């Protein structure tokens, strides 16, 4: 079975934020929640690079390990999902996440964060809801994976900077790119998320 991963080719990202918009629209996420964001490193300096970042669906996800109610888990495809029915909004997953992926509807004074929300790799939710149902959509967003489609952020990336899919395949695509063009600043976050590099 494919091991799903994201890869952002920072040498192609133009900081257009279309991935962010696509994600918000496809999943109808609440105001203030950013499942995906674009961070610009060395902004305005030579060698400036932008990286599109969301949940990386880590190996041995730290969020799942620290969750006090064990409501986060990786699927067979390595997609990290969670159950909003079980989430108690403690915020621990955000402290453990290396990529700042978990989001909460409220700031969280007095522990009032609400149910955690994060990128689902457009694979619906980890709750009881039926796959592809309207209940699932309302709670977690789209389940494109069940329809045989990949996450929309990567699918509609105009420069094909953001890649999503089988980890081996997208790593191969990236390696070929780097070889062909002769340079590459690496797959940002891969070492932390998957304990491996994706470079030629």
């Amino acid at each position, binding site marked *: 079975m494919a091991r799903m991963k994201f890869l952002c080719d920072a040498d192609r990202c133009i900081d257009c934020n279309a991935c962010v918009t696509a994600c918000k629209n496809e999943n109808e996420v609440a105001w203030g929640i950013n499942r995906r964001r674009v961070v610009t*490193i060395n*902004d305005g300096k030579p060698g400036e690079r932008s990286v599109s970042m969301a949940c990386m669906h880590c190996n041995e996800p730290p969020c799942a390990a*620290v969750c006090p109610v*064990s409501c986060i888990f990786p699927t067979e495809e390595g997609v990290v999902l969670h159950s909003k029915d079980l989430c*108690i909004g403690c915020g621990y997953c955000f402290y453990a996440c290396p990529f700042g992926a978990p989001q909460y509807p409220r700031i969280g004074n007095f*522990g009032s964060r609400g149910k955690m929300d994060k990128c689902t790799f457009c694979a619906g939710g980890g709750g009881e809801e039926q796959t592809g149902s309207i209940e699932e959509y309302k709670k977690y967003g789209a389940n494109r994976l069940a329809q045989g489609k990949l996450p929309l952020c990567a699918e509609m990336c105009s420069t094909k900077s953001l890649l999503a899919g089988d980890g081996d395949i997208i790593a191969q695509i990236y390696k070929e790119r780097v070889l062909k063009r*002769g340079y*590459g600043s690496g797959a940002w976050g891969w*070492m932390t998320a998957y304990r491996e590099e994706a470079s030629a």
Partner: protein
Amino acid sequence: MSRNAGGMKLLMTLLARVGHGLAPFVLSTMLAALPSAAAPQTNQNQVVDPDASVVKEQTLLQQAPRIEGRIDIPDKKASVLMQPAGREWDYFHEVILHWLGAIVILGTIVLLALAYLVMGRIRMSSGRSGRKIVRFNGFERFSHWLTAVSFVLLGLTGLNITFGKLVLLPVIGPEAFSAFAQSAKYVHNFVSFSFVVGLVLIVALWIKDNIPRKVDIDWVKQGGGFIKSKHAPAGRFNAGEKLVFWFALGAGAAVIVSGYFLLFPFYLTNIAGMQIAQVVHAVVAVLFVAVILGHIYVGTLGIEGAFEAMGTGEVDLNWAKEHHDLWLEDELAKERPAALQGQPPTAPAAPAAPAE
């Protein structure tokens, strides 16, 4: 050098197009600037590396624990692109804290059980006198129990966050456990305020009697209250109680400050600060629970007659003589003039009167 020669050639061809009359003058001026002027032109033939000035991820992570950048959204903490320290915090929370908590808390319970088996209950060696003296007035007991009840609630709900999924979740199932954990979280958050009030009252009421004195050294030398044949000298609080007091003040301050960092996330700190606050909160709380377990043991099972001090507020005169002789002397000295003025000197020290 060959580069420069090539540049010269190119320049000459260019200059050939310029008028002949100008050539010597232009040539001489251009020659002076040749090395710098020629370089960019020759580089056009080489492979360009657009990544030449890009700082690599690994380099950035060696420079700082987090990679931060600019974002287009108002959520400031989203500007942290990557913080691998999250995995270290995960290791602390899931491995170190689990072992530390289990060893310290279970170890304390085992030690206390051993103490009970070896020493048994330390009884009043001269039995009860039947006469009582007020040790803690109503307000003091209220402050103590406010802190104590808050502490027990905070301790249990706090332990649930770390150990609940190992102990309780398999027993009651995920739905019931989540519902419980959610309520426990709110109890933890709001009971914190009564704990703060209680601790402040305790400190204000008892700090003057908890200042270390010379007698405390004698108390420790004589084995405290644990050697039955001896009665170590002590004022209102003995050295052991003083240690609990100062520990409660220090640890209480640490859990309160770190706890409010967690209760109002990201106001004064960043992600690293939140992790440190959680580590401090958890480690201090585990030690706090262990110390308070010892405090509960001594105050209930360990020493006969001790619980009455916080229960009814009155202790037996013989108990006071054995455990707080210097304090008893002071109290009796205070009572005598009052008794002489108002009542016949033969009247027994009324048990309830000084309490009111």
